[in-house]
């Protein structure tokens, strides 16, 4: 404890809340409030309405939400498979360092540039992916693989080798050790990684703006299109739908995680 007198502690807590609440909590409250309003010209928004939500959960907006969810599911699955495989296969400190550095590289490269690179590489035969949903999924997978790999590699570092050694000493084949011992032990961190990948992919805008074909329009692009033409309040409703969907999935994933860690 750093501050001992009670009055000083209250002062520090007051300053903390004065900084924390406006900076971090206010943005979400404001977006939610705006999504329920038609105009904002005073201290509070006015013209309460649910119309923005009615349009946000049907038609084109619903298509965009489905597109986002499908993209995020596919990209997370790809990223988890690749990242986990790389983390499991890289044994020994040097291999781990090299593979780790390689797989973390997409974080350092700007997402827009990842999009540009995919456009440059896959715009002509034999790899003609430009204009297909595949290229969007691919971009998302590349961008989130780093997080999947990092999370699984960190969990592997903490894994007690005694379990797999015991299984191997009892005659289990390497495949069986992997499927019955190592992967189940990694399940909590795998599901955490899955949640993170899904959330990041749901909110991805930079690479998507470079790549999205007209028939595969994820929700963030739709939010941008709405705010860009000045429709801020409907845009806010779309953003709330996006964040709520993400949070629901994160919640479901964290329930899986608690169940897994109790086993």
């Amino acid at each position, binding site marked *: 404890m750093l501050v001992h007198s009670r009055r000083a502690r209250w002062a520090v807590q007051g300053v903390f809340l004065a900084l924390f609440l406006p900076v971090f909590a206010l943005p979400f409250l404001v977006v939610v409030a705006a999504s329920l309003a038609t105009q904002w010209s005073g201290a509070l928004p006015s013209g309460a309405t649910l119309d923005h939500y009615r349009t946000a959960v049907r038609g084109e907006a619903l298509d965009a939400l489905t597109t986002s969810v499908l993209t995020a599911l596919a990209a997370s699955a790809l990223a988890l498979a690749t990242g986990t495989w790389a983390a499991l296969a890289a044994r020994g400190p040097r291999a781990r360092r090299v593979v780790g550095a390689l797989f973390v590289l997409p974080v350092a490269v700007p997402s827009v540039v990842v999009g540009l690179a995919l456009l440059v590489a896959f715009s002509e035969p034999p790899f003609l992916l430009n204009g297909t949903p595949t290229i969007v999924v691919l971009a998302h997978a590349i961008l989130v693989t780093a997080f999947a790999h990092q999370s699984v590699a960190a969990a592997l570092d903490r894994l007690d080798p005694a379990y797999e050694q015991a299984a191997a000493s009892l005659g289990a084949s390497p495949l069986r050790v992997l499927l019955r011992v190592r992967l189940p032990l990694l399940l909590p961190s795998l599901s955490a990684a899955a949640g993170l990948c899904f959330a990041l992919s749901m909110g991805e805008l930079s690479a998507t703006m470079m790549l999205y074909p007209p028939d595969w329009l994820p929700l963030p692009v739709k939010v941008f299109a709405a705010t860009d033409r000045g429709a*801020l309040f409907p845009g806010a409703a779309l953003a709330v739908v996006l964040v709520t969907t993400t*949070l629901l999935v994160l919640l479901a994933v964290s329930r899986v995680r608690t169940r897994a860690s109790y086993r």
Partner: protein
Amino acid sequence: MVSVLPAPARMAAPARTRRIPAWTLVLPPVTALGLVFLYPLALVLWQSVSPDGGGHGFAAYAEVFGQAAFRNALLDTVLIAAGATAGALLLGFALALVIAFVPLPGGRAIGRFVDVFLSFPSFLITLALLFVYGNAGLANGVWTGMTGAATGPFDFLHTRWGVVLAEVTYFTPFVMRPLLAAFSQLDTAQLDVAASLGARAPRIVRQVVLPEVLPALAAGGSLVLVMSLNEFGIVLFTGAKGVTTLPVLVYGKAILEGDWTGACVVAVVNIALSLALYGLYRTLTARTARPEGERRARA
């Protein structure tokens, strides 16, 4: 128990004849990454030295470097990134310090909120700021309501300052997370000793806490620096005509103008800048991570 195990494990091993060495298992994911990430990046580099007219050379670089738009974007990118990093470091350090060392009702919930915050899309912050400081928004609404003026005084969202404010808000949790981890490893007895010797809180922070968490601070800071150099959504959403960063320039050149070679040149500059800083970040985190590992090994 562990010491007993190697013997039967060694006996079991020769029973299976392995045709392929174990390290080849790492090849499929690495190949996949190479094909969809490294190969396209190499093509970007190649395209940047292959102007449309044919042949190869640095003509495109000379042309792009000569454009005022590029120089402005470079300056904007660096200034915004520096400002956002400085702001996030200050705010993140102050907030993490309070969460870690001053008991607060709901402190743990706040820590969890910070974790969730990290997975939100960045453009959400800009959207929120539009409602708080925008032309028609909370702050200006309060002002016009109080003074009766026609317009409010807050009109900075479409300038560099608006982008910096949004990025500070969005990136501060990225500084707080490593700091909170570092604070939790700090031996609180040191603080108590310093306090019992008569040091006041500011002095304890400066002379005991700060030196101890400096690596975590540096790591968080350089991560934020890289991320703010690469940030696109926040700048795009402010819709600031006067503010262009390198990623926005890449988007503009490639998608809006169709100038691929120019876009690739800007992309190469952006990658070089980010990778240099990212290398720095990795060096700093490697230094932070090592003592932590030793500590765990000793425990």
